[in-house]
């Protein structure tokens, strides 16, 4: 059985990223969009950790950056959820198709 290598991880990362993009562009629910964004973050994390393990095994750079990203994503999620809450209060709903206050 061939051992699991870098390519496998990258393939996984790409699949997860594509799912994230698809979700972000198609979901109508703002929460869903957020979750899709989180998926894309995680796809990036997988890729980072994988590169860190296989390309520069003597360093832990990839892992460190992944840890950063997780922290930043948490903060981002907080802010985003607060915005979503406010939008909900204003618009009585979180359907992103109906939220176009940035239109010209």
């Amino acid at each position, binding site marked *: 059985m061939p051992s699991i290598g870098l390519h496998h991880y990258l393939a996984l990362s790409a699949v997860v990223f594509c799912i994230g*993009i698809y979700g*972000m*562009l198609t979901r109508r629910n703002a929460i869903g*969009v957020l979750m899709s964004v989180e998926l894309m973050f995680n796809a990036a994390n997988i890729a980072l950790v994988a590169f860190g393990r296989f390309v520069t095994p003597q360093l832990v750079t990839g892992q460190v950056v992944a840890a950063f990203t997780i922290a930043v994503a948490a903060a981002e999620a907080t802010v985003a959820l607060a915005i979503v809450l406010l939008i909900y209060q204003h618009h009585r709903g979180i359907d*992103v*198709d109906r*939220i*176009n*206050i*940035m*239109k*010209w």
Partner: protein
Amino acid sequence: MIQTAWLIPIFPLVAMAAIVLFTHRHRALSAGISIAAVSLSFLWGWSVAVSVWGDPTVHRMSFDWLNLGESMYIPIGIQIDGLTGMMLVVVTTVALMVQIYSLGYMRDDPRYSRYYAYLSLFTMAMLTLVLADNFFLMFVSWELVGLASYLLIGFWFEKQSAADAGKKAFITTRLGDLGFILGLLLLYTGCGTLTFQGVFSAVDSHVLSGGLLTIAGLCLFAGAVGKSAQVPLHVWLPDAMEGPTPVSALIHAATMVVAGVYLVARSMSIFLAADRAAMVVAWIGIITSVMAASIGLVQNDIKRVLAYSTVSQLGYMIMALGLGGFTAGTFHLMTHAFFKALLFLGAGSVIHAVHTNDIREMGGLHAKMKTTSITFLIAALAIAGVFPLSGFWSKDEIVAATLGHPIFTVLTLAVAFMTAFYMFRLYFLTFTGKPRDQHKFDHAHESPKTMTVPLQILAVLSVVSGWIGLPWLEHGFSSVVFHEHPHHPEFHVVWAFIAALVGLSGIGLAYMMYYKGSIDPERVRARATGLYTTLLNKYYFDEAYSVLFVRPYYTMCRGWFWFDQHAIDGAVNGLGRVSVAWSVFNRWFDETFVDGAVNGVGWLTRGFGAIVRHLQTGRVQNYAFIVFAALVVLWLLQ
């Protein structure tokens, strides 16, 4: 005395200043100051005159008034000779008499102080005029007497006619004064000086001669024509009778109006050198004399008769001077001053008593006013030239001066006849016969002493002042007043006799018409209606001047004002309007093209933005799609 002669006009000047500034509220005090001042002038004037009696030297003193180098050097000062001495006597005497007389005549007038201030102003100016040693100072005082005359004619200015008369007098005499000013300019340009001494020596030495001298002489004479009421500027003097009667006596009979005669006499050198100018002077004089005497024949206003008589007598003097009769003219000036002042003051006394000027409402007043009547009679005899009163002597000299010019002689005698006639017409109608207005007659009364005493004094002078010219005195009047060297015209017994006879016949005719009634004036009038109307309307001079000059002048002034407002100001405003129109056009151009270009740029930007903004859907997912799509495209392109 002669060294302090400059004080003579100063006294009345001080009096005027004192009245105007301090005592104008105190009637008696103002009159007192004025009379005291003129009394001092009277004493000074007489003593100066006596001390230069027969003295051929000319006393002069002057100081530099204005010195701007040769372009204008005007010293002013006084000059005293026989002529000045005579004038001083006349002016101060009549002025004093009139001021005393006015105490009574003007007693009830509310502007009593002002009246005396004006009289003092006049006396000051008139005395300066006769004392001046140059044409400039003479002109200055000439204008000031004109001012005093204006103020006094219009003294009762509430009356429209009085105000009109004052204005007319001032403007008419000023018309003559234009000539005087031009004369001054010509003399200064020609001689470089305006002192009598300088000008006359320049004339004598032919520095100034020929046509220029003639023009200068005529210009000076124009001033005299205005001031001495000669044709054609005589129209103001009869109207000037609107003033108080003592004023008429002082200013418009005895003193101011003879200033013109004095000017011509003073400038004798000029007129002797410019004989054509002298002939003009003589003709103007005799025309005036005849014309005024003829008007005097028919007037019914006591003062107007006297006014025309004055004009006529002034014409006499002017004519005599123009014919070279220097002594005759000045001699008649003096005697006339006394008897004409007396006539006016007598007329004033009558007016004071009956409150009318119209002789048709008088008559029989001799019974009520003996002093006035007798003094008036003396003056009338004097002016008619009856022996041995003053007028006889001076009129004889005038007739003598015309010898050699037959037309003048005849006309002079005609005037003498008319003068005697109208004076006695006046006398008979006023003082004799039956009262024609019983009411006025009943209220008539003799005037107070302040008025009758001056009448008596003047009556004495009217009798004796001619005796200076008695033929058996060495040189007669010419030993007092002479031009360079005394020249005494021969006493012509024959002509004296003829002149006296003419005068007596005039008196006789008046006696028959207005005393005895043997000739009916109405029938004479009916025979010559046209002539009578013409004379009554004074040859229509006023009407003609009104049509020819006054009204066209007003019209012309309005025309020029219209021109100013519409043409000149119209041009200015038109320029303004053109500027405004140009600005409006500029604004349109600016808004359409310049601003249009700027706005066009903005409009383009907006239009483009309107298209492009459709990309901004506001949907986050669209933006994200675009980002990814762009990434993919970039990746593919790479």
